[in-house]
């Protein structure tokens, strides 16, 4: 029973429950979050019986905000992102875009999976343009737009290379350019740096921070790396193990522009300890709950 209580979302430190604000005030269109996920529950039918991947998950992302979703593997993070992207329909609950739960989300958000999923028959520039082409933008126009941002993504000079000729970090940049070009105001990043080595990951995190500042887009970032969440995000949600529930929500008290050295500040260390403790508690609960 105590554990149940611990799993209730705790108030944010500055006292604002995002999502709650728009329910209270009727004419609050400017405070309305860009993305509002409400009481989303997802159940799958599997061979071993029904599995609840997510249970009553609520979260929100404001315009221009970078929100991280941290959780152990198997917590349904990717499932939640697929629901937000419009790929899956939740068993119950709503996902509202600008307050509209009926809005079509396919083709309006920028989704980026963990694998770069570049098309091997397209050169780097053509791959970056592929998302726009998939939305129906004519080929020449899509390539012109991709060319216009190619240098911003640190890809100048790599336009004509095929994916196997690019390093892992470069491929991820191309994938990100594709998502950023095709996506609207909200980018959904599913462990975008998970498959990279530590050095490349650190470089791309720094690059993403800088780029996010320039793009002014909201991001929902799924990660299992607490440091990554602290470095990049404005707010962090912690998701429990299956069935995934939001057990903690925290604002990251670090100023921008961010740098890795800020992770050494006392408030960052304290928050990291709190997040890790929440995740460790999950791990322990998982171990204890195993045999029972």
């Amino acid at each position: 029973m105590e554990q149940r209580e611990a799993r209730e979302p705790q108030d944010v430190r500055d006292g604002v429950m995002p999502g709650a604000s728009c329910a209270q005030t009727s004419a609050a269109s400017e405070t309305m979050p860009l993305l509002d996920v409400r009481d989303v529950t997802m159940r799958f039918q599997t061979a071993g019986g029904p599995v609840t991947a997510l249970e009553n998950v609520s979260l929100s992302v404001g315009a221009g905000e970078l929100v991280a979703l941290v959780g152990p593997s198997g917590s349904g993070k990717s499932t939640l992102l697929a629901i937000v992207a419009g790929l899956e329909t939740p068993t119950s609950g709503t996902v509202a875009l600008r307050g509209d739960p009926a809005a079509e989300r396919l083709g309006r958000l920028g989704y980026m999976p963990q694998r770069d999923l570049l098309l091997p028959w397209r050169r780097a520039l053509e791959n970056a343009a592929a998302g726009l082409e998939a939305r129906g933008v004519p080929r020449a126009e899509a390539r012109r737009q991709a060319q216009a941002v190619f240098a911003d993504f640190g890809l100048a000079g790599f336009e004509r290379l095929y994916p196997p000729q690019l390093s892992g970090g470069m491929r991820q940049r191309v994938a990100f350019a594709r998502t950023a070009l095709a996506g609207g105001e909200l980018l959904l990043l599913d462990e975008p740096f998970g498959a990279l080595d530590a050095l490349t990951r650190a470089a791309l995190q720094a690059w993403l921070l800088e780029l996010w500042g320039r793009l002014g887009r909201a991001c929902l970032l799924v990660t299992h790396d607490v440091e990554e969440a602290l470095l990049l995000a404005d707010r962090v949600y912690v998701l429990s193990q299956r069935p995934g529930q939001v057990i903690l929500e925290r604002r990251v008290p670090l100023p921008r522009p961010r740098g890795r050295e800020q992770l050494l500040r006392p408030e960052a260390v304290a928050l990291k300890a709190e997040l890790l403790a929440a995740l460790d508690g999950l791990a322990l609960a998982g171990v204890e709950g195993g045999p029972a």
Partner: protein
Amino acid sequence: MTVETRPDQQAAQPAPSLAGAAAGERPMESRRAAWAGFARRLWDVVPAVALLAGLLLLWQWYASRPQNDPQFLPTPLAVWSALAAQREILWHHTLVTLWETVVGFAAALVAGVVCAVIVDISPWLRRAVYPLLVASQTIPIITLAPLLVLWFGFGLTSKAIVILLVCFFPITVALADGLRSADPELMRLYRTFGAGAGRIFWMVRLPGALPQLFSGIRIAITYSVIGAIFAEYVGASEGLGYYILLKQHSFATAGVMAAIVVTAALSIALFALTALVERAALPWYYLGRREGSGN
């Protein structure tokens, strides 16, 4: 920039030849590398050529023994002189066979692609059409050929239909399998971009299935010449198959063999042409392979 590009270069370290060749090395070096590659490929064919020459010499020696009947087994040199003497007639028959092959193969390619797409459109259509396609292959085309000649006459049509029936199946199976093997994650990603089934087909699934389509085409093109020769055997007034039959009836064994040599050359030429088209159409597919085999 320097800080962030360095790790990328380190990540690229395991495959320096890839990055180097692509980013454009100095022309001198790449030309030398290309020349070395050519020489190595030349050296690769030496054993095959030597074996072939040895076998031809053995044949020449065996067939030129006095007790050998040249009508039973002509020497390679005799085959060569038959080829040279009949070159104009052979050329005419070759063109006829080539034209039948081209028409039949083109029809097979269209039919094969259409069948693969139909099978791909819905699971229901797959269940309806696939068993019939497989069943159609259990009927020996050889037994159909006389019927086809009966129905469509001695001309081009009956030959093209035999070739079509022989060739469309490998193309259908290869393309249908290629379309089926598309990465589901890739298709999900393109759905999030707002692409419908049609656009996903053109952007993701069809280009991804092309390497498999080409392996089907390579099988089909070798079948196509065999199909043409066989159809001419059954009933024709010209073509290499007809020529072989003619020479066989007059016991001109060297002439039969000369036509066989031409047939083989035609098959090899068409196969090589297919390989060339494939390399030109799918440069990306050979990227990794060439680099891989080079090391």
